[in-house]
């Protein structure tokens, strides 16, 4: 059985090409079932990639089948086998092949593809390992810790002030798309949008509805500061909408206030940053954080690559060990046949033995066989990982495995 991967991704194909071979979950599952053809198949289709994984006894045939399914004549595809294919999937699951290194969404997509696929022992193991490697990389490196967008940077910084955002109240000043994105990032981490204020009351009402929040008249915004922990401001006002005096005079009694100013021109008087317990970030500050964070992710990616390569090597060893399993089974079977046959032949001479003595003879002969086979079997497993299937063939030849024992050349001289 060989592992085969055929696919394309954002690295090879632009979106107008990728969208032609993108499959939703049901279609991907149906395609995998159709292409499996007695083997195993999984289709991983996301907005950045479409990939088909196979475990099959005829790798060339399934590779062509997959290329046809992915419009190989028109789409540039990559084709990989065995360890390379495993390494690729592990890198994908770890987020190392993503646009933003370490992004977390891919892990769920790999899980979805695995669950919908036509799995057998090889792809089942491959995908379970890929999911484990994906988690391991995110646990053992900081690749997924830093934010990759302005809104997630704002939410991560708010967490550095308040810890868990559960119970944190957010005031949205301005009800545009930018405010909404920031609000989503904050609520995803547990914050509550408590109030929305905007010069356009309809926009405020729409956004407030979306987050189950109150609307506040724009002129009353300063009064709302007393109840808020986080303020997100993104209006199109040419003048600041929150002054230092408005923020200072809100009776917060030392509670921190985190202010996110996403507007250009800025909505919040920069002097607010000078107030005790007030932390003000504007769009440039947040973009700076994202830049630093992405370079940090790339640095962490180097460590992640080492983990992934090590795991791919382990998978290769496991895959190689599959080649020896039938040979080991044949060897054991052959040995057992000989052992029981010889005992049967000696039956006449063993007639006088008691039941207990008979069991002792059974046990003794079994132990001799097991001990004789132990070292060859261990060596065969070790060699399978390092020297491939050739070693198994040598073992088959030496022990005459798979040959007819009754054939004249396999009989002992004089028998």
């Amino acid at each position, binding site marked *: 059985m060989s592992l085969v991967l055929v696919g394309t991704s954002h690295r090879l194909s632009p979106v107008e090409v990728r969208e032609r071979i993108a499959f939703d979950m049901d279609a991907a599952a149906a395609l995998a079932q159709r292409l499996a053809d007695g083997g195993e198949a999984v289709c991983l289709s996301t907005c950045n990639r479409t990939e088909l994984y196979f475990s099959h006894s005829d790798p060339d045939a399934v590779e062509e089948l997959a290329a046809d399914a992915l419009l190989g004549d028109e789409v540039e595809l990559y084709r990989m086998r065995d360890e390379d294919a495993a390494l690729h999937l592990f890198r994908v699951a770890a987020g190392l092949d993503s646009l933003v290194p370490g992004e977390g969404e891919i892990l769920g997509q790999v899980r979805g593809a695995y669950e919908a696929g036509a799995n057998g022992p090889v792809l089942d193991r491959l995908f379970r390992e890929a999911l484990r490697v994906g988690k391991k990389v995110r646990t053992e490196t900081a690749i997924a810790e830093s934010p990759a967008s302005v809104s997630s940077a704002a939410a991560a910084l708010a967490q550095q002030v308040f810890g868990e955002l559960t119970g944190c109240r957010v005031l949205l000043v301005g009800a545009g798309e930018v405010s909404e994105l920031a609000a989503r990032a904050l609520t995803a981490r547990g914050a509550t949008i408590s109030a929305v204020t905007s010069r356009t009351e309809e926009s405020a009402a729409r956004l407030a509805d979306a987050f189950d929040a109150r609307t506040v008249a724009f002129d009353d915004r300063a009064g709302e500061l007393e109840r808020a922990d986080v303020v997100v401001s993104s209006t199109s006002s040419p003048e600041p909408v929150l002054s230092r005096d408005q923020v200072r005079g809100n009776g917060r009694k*030392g509670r921190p206030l985190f202010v996110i100013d996403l507007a250009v021109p800025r909505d919040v008087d920069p002097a607010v940053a000078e107030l*005790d317990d007030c932390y003000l970030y504007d769009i440039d500050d947040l973009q700076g954080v994202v830049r630093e964070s992405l370079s940090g992710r790339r*640095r962490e990616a180097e460590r992640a690559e080492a983990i992934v390569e090590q795991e791919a090597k382990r998978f290769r060893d496991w895959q190689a060990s599959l080649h020896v399993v039938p040979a080991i089974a044949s060897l054991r079977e052959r040995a057992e046949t000989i052992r029981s046959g010889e005992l049967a032949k000696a039956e006449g001479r063993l007639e006088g033995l008691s039941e207990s003595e008979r069991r002792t003879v059974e046990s003794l002969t079994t132990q001799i066989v097991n001990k004789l086979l132990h070292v060859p079997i261990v060596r065969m497993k070790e060699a399978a990982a390092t020297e491939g299937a050739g070693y198994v063939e040598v073992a088959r030849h030496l022990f005459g495995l798979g040959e007819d024992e009754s054939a004249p050349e396999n009989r002992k001289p004089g028998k």
Partner: protein
Amino acid sequence: MAELLFWPAFLAYGEAAVAYAGDARRPGSMGRLATWGVRVGWLVQTALLIAQAARADGFPWGTWAGSLNLFVWLVVGAYLIWGCKPRFRLLGLVVMPLAALLLAISYAAGGMDVSGTNRYSSLFLGLHVGLVLAGFAGLTLAAALAVLYLWQERELKRRSSRVLRFRAPSLVTLEGLFARTVAFSLPVLTLGMAVGFARLRERSQLDPLIVLTVLTWAVYGGFLLLRYGADWRGRRAAYATLAGFALVVAMQLTLQAGHFG
């Protein structure tokens, strides 16, 4: 035996301090080495203290150098409660170099020696020194948490992206922790002081250390009143904790002048 155990404990604390510095340079790279250094060092120092106790004829840490040895063990023990969590690794950068340095000073000043005699009973010394040092250890940890708070607060004020790289606990968490640590340590210190004062009645004399102890108690007591009574939070609270710690350091130095002499 104690001298033999000093070196592995010192090396493990030193290794932890260096690893924490490496981890601060490149977060995530040496954190595990650092936390294992702390754990191993603390276990070895525990064995060292047990060896001292087994060999001594009475309370073995009644001298200044001996009490420093016990103090380091208490500080690292208190740090271990949270310190091995990744988010508190920056705290290790504050605590572990201090622990290694103080242990070395204790060694150089004869803190591993248990042959000295003291005119006070072991029970009194055990209670008084043990409780006061446990209180000091807690206050030291509170000061380290306050330092971490002030660092993180400054980084947030400066809008530095380092704040996300190092990922210390949040300001609210740190502020709550150092206030709670003071709230826990002060009663322990008070008990230790009460035992000392009971003995003082027999001795009927005041020394500068006693004055400093009372002053320290007043500063921390005032801090707790303001923190829990008047919602004193943030930077002011961190500075108050550090002011109290400056008095703890002054007390340690005064102790060297011969409180038990």
